[in-house]
């Protein structure tokens, strides 16, 4: 009975470690491309956030289109990854794209609270996407801040 429990524990640990390894992809084959892809999405997110701050709701569908376009960079970046990891990234990416689409849909309401809620949900989804990659490659939403007035070029 004791050895049976040990075997089950060992199997669980093995599966868990395998799952973590599959989900983390410690060393993607194209780390630069992955980092750039995440930066592109973070950059468009920052633009969306700026549009909300400026109450430019009508521009948000356009930003969503840019987000959808920008996802191509991630698809290319993981093109040569193992199938399991690729599936994991693509399913998370699809969820992120759906969240971006929701931002565009909610922008039609011109309700700032509703749009903010949709943008927060997008940020949460982007955190999940980033979590699939090593920390050094991540570009979390909010990591591309809008330059403050008075910064370079703001004369």
């Amino acid at each position, binding site marked *: 009975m004791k050895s049976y429990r040990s075997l089950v524990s060992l199997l669980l640990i093995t599966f868990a470690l395998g799952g973590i390894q599959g989900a983390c992809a410690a060393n993607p084959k194209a780390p630069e491309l992955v980092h*750039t892809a995440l930066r592109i999405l973070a950059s468009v997110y920052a*633009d969306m956030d700026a549009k909300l701050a400026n109450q430019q709701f009508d521009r948000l569908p356009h930003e969503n289109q840019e987000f959808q376009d920008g996802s*191509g960079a991630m698809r290319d970046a993981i093109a040569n990854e193992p199938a399991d990891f690729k599936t994991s990234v693509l399913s998370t990416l699809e969820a992120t794209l759906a969240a971006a689409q929701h931002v565009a849909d909610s922008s039609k309401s011109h309700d700032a609270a509703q749009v903010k809620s949709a943008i927060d949900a997008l940020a949460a989804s982007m955190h999940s996407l980033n979590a699939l990659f090593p920390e050094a490659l991540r570009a979390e939403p909010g990591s591309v801040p809008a330059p403050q007035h008075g910064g370079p070029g703001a004369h």
Partner: protein
Amino acid sequence: MKRREILTALLMAPAGFVGYRVLAASSRAPQVELTIATDGDLLAFKPTELACPTGAHVRLTFLHTGKYIRQEHDWVLTVPGATQAVAKAGLEAGESAGYLPHADRRVLAATPLCGKGEQVSVEFIAPAPGTYPYMCSYPGHDTFMRGTLTVTPR
């Protein structure tokens, strides 16, 4: 007849001298080639700092190196302190105007808008020494796509 020709020549001499000086000054003006690009698909210029001497005949080439996002960019040089106001006026001018106010004296030079993979250029005479901001006038991009042109004395 000869006297008249001599008199004409004497009268025209100062004008000819002025014309020569203008031509000479023009030929002495340095020709400067500047190149700037987008940072791929990111909302950023690369580089964010440019420099040239005052009075130079500048030819600036702007490359849109984006690959994925269907968005347009331009390069707009303004007088100091005017980027926000010009961007706002560009937004009001709308897409048909290329998001740039027509004949706005605050705009010193500007390329047309261009899409991913394209390049555009503009020629201008470098203004007085100083630091001039540049930006992309496409709606919202001015917040991120900024840089400065430093014009040095000659």
